[in-house]
């Protein structure tokens, strides 16, 4: 097991072709260690989400080298790629992407269902994740009937349920008022500190970024402030 969970070298991502081509990432290089909390920080349109999607293997880079746990990610395809997405990553998005008319438990156990886990095991692990987020009493409620903060906690429970080694959070507090946002932040940093889950947070919020071990500042597709790449 290597200490570096992500090794990124000269990563580029171009959207579109020819005249319409737009280079959203113009060659970024960095490493992320296991168990670190990292903020990807930058203005809107700077390429934060693009970088996160490439790291989360949701999008292929146009060029450059990306290794996950020492494995060149270009070698991951089909079933293997899906297994990594399912077992290694957990996602928390600014918009919750909950199925409104399904119950909280059903929403939380979706990754387990995709993984092919049996119904009883799904229930057990789903309830465990909900308990961790103090939502077990809401398990049977429809997702649509929850408050914003509760919804984001459901999303975190869903991200956790597979025991991922990395959680990606894209603007996790963007849709929440500051008090609720703070609670959600606490939960995420707790998970990082206590469960050793690598946390990668995309944000334009300096305060949230400051709570992370390290900040990757991005501007127009390039990393700025290289000094911060040295572990703080």
């Amino acid at each position: 097991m290597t200490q570096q969970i992500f090794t990124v070298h000269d990563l580029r991502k171009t959207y579109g072709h020819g005249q319409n081509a737009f280079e959203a990432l113009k060659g970024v290089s960095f490493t992320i260690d296991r168990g670190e909390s990292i903020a990807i920080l930058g203005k809107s349109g700077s390429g934060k989400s693009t970088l996160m999607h490439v790291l989360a293997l949701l999008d292929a880079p146009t060029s450059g080298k990306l290794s996950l746990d020492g494995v060149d990610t270009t070698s991951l395809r089909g079933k293997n790629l899906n297994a990594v997405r399912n077992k290694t990553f957990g996602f928390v998005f600014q918009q919750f992407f909950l199925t409104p008319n399904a119950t909280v438990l059903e929403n939380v156990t979706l990754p387990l269902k995709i993984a092919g886990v049996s119904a009883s095991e799904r229930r057990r692990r789903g309830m465990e994740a909900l308990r961790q987020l103090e939502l077990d009493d809401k398990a049977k409620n429809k997702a649509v009937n929850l408050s914003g903060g509760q919804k984001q906690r459901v999303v975190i429970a869903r991200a956790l349920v597979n025991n991922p080694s990395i959680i990606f959070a894209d603007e996790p507090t963007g849709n929440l008022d500051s008090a609720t946002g703070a609670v959600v932040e606490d939960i995420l940093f707790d998970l990082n500190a206590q469960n050793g889950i690598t946390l990668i947070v995309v944000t334009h919020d300096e305060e949230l970024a400051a709570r992370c071990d390290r900040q990757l500042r991005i501007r127009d597709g390039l990393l700025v402030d290289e000094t911060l790449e040295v572990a703080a």
Partner: protein
Amino acid sequence: MKTRDLVSSAISNTFRSKTRTVLTALAIFIGAFTLTLTNGLGTGINAYIDDTLEGIGVSDVLTVTKPDPSSVGFGASSTEPQLYDPDSIDVDQGGAPGSSVIALTPEDLDELSSINGVLDVQAVRQVTVDFVQTADSELYVAQLAGILEGQSLNITAGREPDTDATTHEVVIPASYVESLGFTDASAIIGETLTLQVSDATRTSHSVDAEIVGTSEPTLASPLGESIVANTSLTDALVEAQNTGIPAEQAERYPQASVWFAADASPEDITALKDRLSDAGYSGLTVEDQLGTFTTVIDGIVLVLNGFAVIALIAASFGIVNTLLMSVQERTREIGLMKAMGMGSGKVFGLFSLEATFIGFLGSAVGVFAAIISGTAISAALSESLLADLPGLQLIAFDPATTAVIILVIMGIAFLAGTLPAARAAKADPVTSLRYE
């Protein structure tokens, strides 16, 4: 994702937008309903024909005629005058329309019995009855038919004529009872029926017979509304009719019945027919004679099914439309599932299963409704319009056909679902999850 979970997810997804699912399934319902009813019609009528065939009980008999080689039926009608053949007769039974047959002579009967596979030969004797009457009734024209051994009638009162009896016995159609001066069928049993025939010199001869039963014609009965005589009565009538004709002239028969082994396979029967036609005869089983009937019904059912299938094709566009809307609405969800590691194949499976389920829903309900209403319709009709055809269940359902209908509709629905499902499977998780 496990197949079971995939199926249950697909089912619960279809219930998410109920109105849309119901409307889509409704179109399928109409197609399934029509298809089941039209097929039920075919099944019902054909089952009736089969039953009647069984009832006649002469599956081991061929009706044999000798076709005139100079006239071979449709399309061969020559405009040239034909040579006279004293044995050539026009019969309206047994041969193809437009073709005449040559009368069978005792030599022919001997030849027939010598053919391999023929167990027994009996000439069918034609008797032309001038009229029938009871003691005080008016004179009524009537058709006479002989009864073959093993053949059964659709008896409504009394019994079948006894083929071995030495006395003259007759069964009359139930419709004759009132005209012959009786109020109900049981009253006429045991009465005497007088039949009159004329011989070649137009001299009339009367023969008396005892009425032993009344019968109702069945759809497939070759006997129709005929008076059925036993052997001894037929003998007497033939004798009377042939008075004055030299014996060798009298023995001329339009057709003969040929018995073969009751356990003969269809191949055996075909082989026997081939041997008969090699010898210059033509043999038809009762099934052959009714085969045209079944073919016509199958043809009609096929056309009706065509309409039902058109309805189903229209309905399948409904499925395409519904699912495309659903894929559109659920882009985010699809993206999320893919981000969580759901393979494209499973996404495709999920959506095509949804389509298949809508197909199942519509077809199962449609088939069910068709069975209920079809049964009700046949029950009502068999008491009114079709009361004269006892035993006919106009619309009948056979489990295999019904299952095939549901499966075919599910198949059509699946095909309709492939386009939206392929679109969902192609969806790129990043594009689906982007928001601004």
